[in-house]
């Protein structure tokens, strides 16, 4: 259950964070305009926003969002996808992704941009074929940090009252039942899955990293 929540929240963060980062990296105006907002929003812990997001989204879940409530009594995953929880996951993951992407776009080598210009590439072409591939390693780095944050956030969020599924819930519940064996096992699983996430992303990003690091 936790995994599905993270997958949802994290994809949302990536889907929104990468374009924002690209925009902020490429355009000075966008950077000036958005950086204040990002810098103010970034230190706000996602957990601190949980109560607010519960007020905002009530206990709505994804199944309600898509009008699928009639499926309620079947085993419906979407029923467990509380919007509030997805929102704070998004919040936790999006900032490292934005910052990583900006970093990537800004660290494109000037010589490559100049070469592209002389070779006749226009702005869009350069963006698509030079800036994005060159920024890819940093984007992956941001994604890696982002998914780590998401994972931390979801465990904490699930430990709060009001949830009845997920591995964070399992940790809290086994603690209440004094089943420390289950609790410890869950913690190990959490650590293991977290490592798996970042290793997985790393191996996807490996190729672009290798290409850039060997260039010099």
């Amino acid at each position, binding site marked *: 259950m936790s995994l599905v929540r993270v997958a949802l929240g994290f994809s949302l963060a990536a889907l929104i964070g990468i374009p924002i980062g690209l925009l902020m990296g490429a355009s000075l105006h966008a950077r000036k305009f958005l950086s204040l907002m990002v810098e103010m929003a970034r230190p706000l812990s996602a957990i601190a926003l949980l109560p607010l997001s519960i007020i905002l989204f009530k206990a709505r879940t994804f199944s309600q969002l898509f009008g699928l409530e009639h499926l309620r009594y079947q085993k419906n995953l979407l029923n467990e996808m509380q919007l509030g929880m997805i929102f704070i996951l998004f919040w936790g993951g999006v900032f490292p992704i934005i910052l990583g992407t900006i970093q990537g776009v800004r660290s494109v080598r000037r*010589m*490559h941009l*100049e*070469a*592209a*210009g*002389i*070779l*006749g*590439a*226009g702005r869009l*072409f350069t963006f698509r*074929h*030079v800036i994005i*591939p*060159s920024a*890819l390693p940093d984007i992956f780095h941001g994604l890696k940090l982002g998914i780590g944050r998401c994972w931390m956030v979801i465990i904490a969020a699930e430990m709060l009252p009001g949830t009845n599924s997920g591995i964070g819930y399992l940790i809290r519940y086994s603690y209440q039942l004094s089943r420390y064996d289950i609790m410890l096992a869950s913690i190990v699983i959490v650590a293991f899955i977290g490592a798996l996430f970042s290793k997985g992303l790393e191996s996807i990003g490996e190729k*672009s990293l290798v*290409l*850039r690091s*060997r*260039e*010099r």
Partner: protein
Amino acid sequence: MIALKVTNLSKTYRESSGDVHALDSVTFETETGEFLCFLGPTGCGKTTLLRAIAGLEKPDNGVVRIQSHPDGGEPVIGYVFQQGALFPWMSIFANLEFPLKAKRIVKDTRREKVESMLEMMGLSSFASSYPHQLSGGMQQRAALARSLVMEPDLLLMDEPFSSLDTRTSQELQENLRDLLKRASTTVLFVTHNIEEAVFMAGEIIVLGHRPGRIVRRETINLPESRSRLSDAFTEYLVSLRKTFESLVSGS
């Protein structure tokens, strides 16, 4: 026909330690198809001059006029950097394809052009390799190929072979000369290596030390096909080296 006319080009870099005059009213022109070498000590503004002509650097003053393409369109300019300008995330083939793709040339023509260029440069077997898998010499060869595949009217080269060992560098010089014989490309070649200049160029412009200005221009009176081992070549080289020394130390 005049391929390039540069008038009163000046550029000053303002730095905290004071102004650095990189170029001081540089004026010259060159004919279509000519091979012009800029020779000068490090820091004399050679690179700045080339960058200003390419439009990479905005001069404080002066005009650069480049003859338009024979069919009346924008002139095509090629630029070969000192090193490392290949895109490391693209294969050699994709690197060469880049300028053609940017110009929206259809796929089949692109493939054809890239393949024949790779063939000419002896790079066919590296088409699917990435730049980091190639030696420095091969990388520069590929960078040169990427500039030539656009069939430039004006080719600007900024010490393209200076980071290579002598043997590789000479090989590439010979290659480039042979390739250019078939085209009417005008070439500006920047170097601090006198031998390279004498071997390649039709004319040499010597730039003096700061501020960067032209101190001498001369035509090289050697036959088209030159041999490094011929007496005429060595003689010429020695005499030019002498004048060069006196010019540089005198300023």
